[in-house]
């Protein structure tokens, strides 16, 4: 493993009541977050390929952790998202190197499919910074019931020379979703959009 991991945190949320109404079955989502050393902290490096490889490793590891936290088979995941926070001695482009070139393929391998773009966000910040991981349906980005986001934070990360990398997976959409649009039972699943 190329990534030097200091810590992995896993978060699970289960919502069974909303505005006095029962959510049945409850909606559930999980996020797995790794805190790793940034090999390029403190210097401008042109070639970011080491972080791209680290992204590939973390794509598999964190997706497995998130799915395990939900207690489901990967194929039963419905939506996903990814995010990264770079400590103050790194640059935003380091998050991009982890998230965009190679991380998606192993995520999709663990989940069985994943025709849709994996929504993402990134930032640079200090310890305790909040990450909002955007969520979208994994096979059809336009499924309106699954547009969502999950907030995560780790109080002691990222240190200046670290990067926080997060992957979120759900087995459901929003609780009590009812604003119309494409529903999951209408997915064609060919183009990743509808």
């Amino acid at each position: 493993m190329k990534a030097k991991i200091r810590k992995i945190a896993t978060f699970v949320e289960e919502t069974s009541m909303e505005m006095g109404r029962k959510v049945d079955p409850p909606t559930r989502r999980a996020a797995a977050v790794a805190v790793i050393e940034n090999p390029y902290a403190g210097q401008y490096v042109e070639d970011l390929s080491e972080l791209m490889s680290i992204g590939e490793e973390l794509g598999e590891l964190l997706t497995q952790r998130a799915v395990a936290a939900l207690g489901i088979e990967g194929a039963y995941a419905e939506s996903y998202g990814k995010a990264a926070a770079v400590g103050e001695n790194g640059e935003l482009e380091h998050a991009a190197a982890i998230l965009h070139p190679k991380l998606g393929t192993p995520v999709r391998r663990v989940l069985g499919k994943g025709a849709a773009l994996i929504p993402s966000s990134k930032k640079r910040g200090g310890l305790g910074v909040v990450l909002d991981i955007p969520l979208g349906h994994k096979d059809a980005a336009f499924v309106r019931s699954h547009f969502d986001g999950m907030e995560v934070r780790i109080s002691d990360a990222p240190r200046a020379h670290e990067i926080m990398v997060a992957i979120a997976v759900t087995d459901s959409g929003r609780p009590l979703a009812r604003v119309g649009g494409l529903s999951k039972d209408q997915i064609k699943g060919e183009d990743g959009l509808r």
Partner: protein
Amino acid sequence: MPEVQVRKKVLMVEEIFHEGGPIADKPQRRAAILAVIRNPYAGSYVEKIEPFMDDLKPLGLEMARALVAALGGDSKVVEGYGKGAIVGSAGELEHGALWHVPGGYAMREILGGAKAIVASTKKVGGPGTRLDLPITHINASYVRSHFDAMEVGINDAPRADEIVLALVMTTGPRVHARVGGLRANEIKGEDGLR
């Protein structure tokens, strides 16, 4: 038909010259606009909320126009976009989902028919809640240089019975974008993805 009551708007503009590497020939600019509105459904469970999406359309157009104006007035400079919402504590996540249609289609209209899905995120939170608005290229979601995000928030919003609605636009790629992938000059522009 509930009236759209705006208490406050906030406009934020960032101009980014470099991030430790070469100084950009053309600084990247990001602009976000936030509107704090009263949540007509705060405090109770209302089944039929979809009509409020139409009520929000004029506000969406007004906010999209304000962003173009903040970036110099020419919609052709806009290359990335995103949106989000923060619902006050007396509302539910589903109320934030009302923003998908009026927020997204307003920007597409003002930008002359942008093709890509508008990246989004949403949450329920108290006053001062921060939101990371995800950003992607307006015509092709897979343009890697334009995956970005902008953090926004208002210290006194949303109050319990309010919603913060947000739109964001950018004028170009990340300042030192160099992780490969689809480039803006390679866009086919047919499916909104590539």
